[in-house]
């Protein structure tokens, strides 16, 4: 049998990271449209994640890339990015973010996961989960729907 689908895989990574943000939602939009938004990191990520002002990704369709993020305060940070259909995992020195999607009938099941790198900010994660985790995830799903509607 094949390995876990991208969403099951993200659940496992989120469990390993003890990620404060992990949520799944079924969007009433086709997979190709949803993934076109999510995978277009350079153009869409600043719309999907509030603290990302710019995200620069080198051209090409390699599955492993090094991108540069500029946050809301103008601070630059390198990101390692892994991108494949239905799967995106990104990591900087400070944060990790994952997105996964699978077709679900005529719609799409989308999952998002976010964590800070434990060695630096581990203790913050538990409080963050309660206060902001769910709100962040809801805002992310709404943003994907909004950006998809513009395409």
């Amino acid at each position, binding site marked *: *049998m094949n390995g876990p689908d991208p969403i099951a*895989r993200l*659940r*496992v*990574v989120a*469990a*390993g990271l003890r990620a404060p943000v992990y949520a799944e939602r079924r969007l009433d939009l086709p997979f190709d449209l949803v993934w076109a938004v999510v995978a277009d990191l350079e153009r869409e990520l600043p719309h999907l994640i509030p603290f990302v002002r710019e995200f620069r990704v080198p051209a090409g369709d390699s599955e492993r890339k090094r991108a540069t993020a500029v946050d809301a305060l103008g601070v630059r940070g390198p990101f390692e990015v892994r991108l494949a259909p239905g799967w995106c*995992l990104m990591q900087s020195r400070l944060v990790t973010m994952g997105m996964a999607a699978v077709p679900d009938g005529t719609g799409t099941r989308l999952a998002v996961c976010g964590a800070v790198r*434990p060695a630096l900010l581990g203790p913050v994660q538990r409080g963050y989960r309660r206060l902001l985790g769910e709100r962040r995830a809801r805002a992310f799903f709404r943003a994907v729907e909004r950006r998809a509607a513009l395409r």
Partner: protein
Amino acid sequence: MDDDARPWDVAAPLVRAAQRGDALAMDDLLGLVTPYVTRLCAPIAPADTADAVQESLLAVFRGLRGLRDPLAFYGWVRAVTVREAVRVARRTAGETPADPEQITRLRDLLPAAAEAAGAGTELTTEVRDLLARLPVRHRTVLVLRDLEGLDERTMAELLDIPEGTVKSRLSRARSSFRKAWTR
């Protein structure tokens, strides 16, 4: 990757990085260990293999930071996986006794299973069918003994049962095959 590299040597640096919260290493480790977890779960929880694999992987990655020796990764994964696979199989398994006709068809289980394990391939459909008809406790000891090559003491520790119980379970599981041979 070096073809001669032992799996635990390949896994160890990924385990260390994953324990430090490196998500990319975690993902690589997940890719590395999923076939092994699947190979253990398929015969123990044949009706719910996908569930058993997912539950095992979740338990492995949740517990990863507590693993002290990265070189012990595979042994630890085996213990966690067997526990989860047995739990999932018991949750849903109708523990129906083996159908003698099925057993007759599948009397080659032990050599075939050992060969499949040696070649690192999936079990044949016939082997799976037979295992699916055995009670979970019998399936588990056969898998650990004949696929994983564990001795009785290690199995007893892993399953948290006395060594004598392992022996009697093995003997009962195998007697099904002996019966089949005489038919």
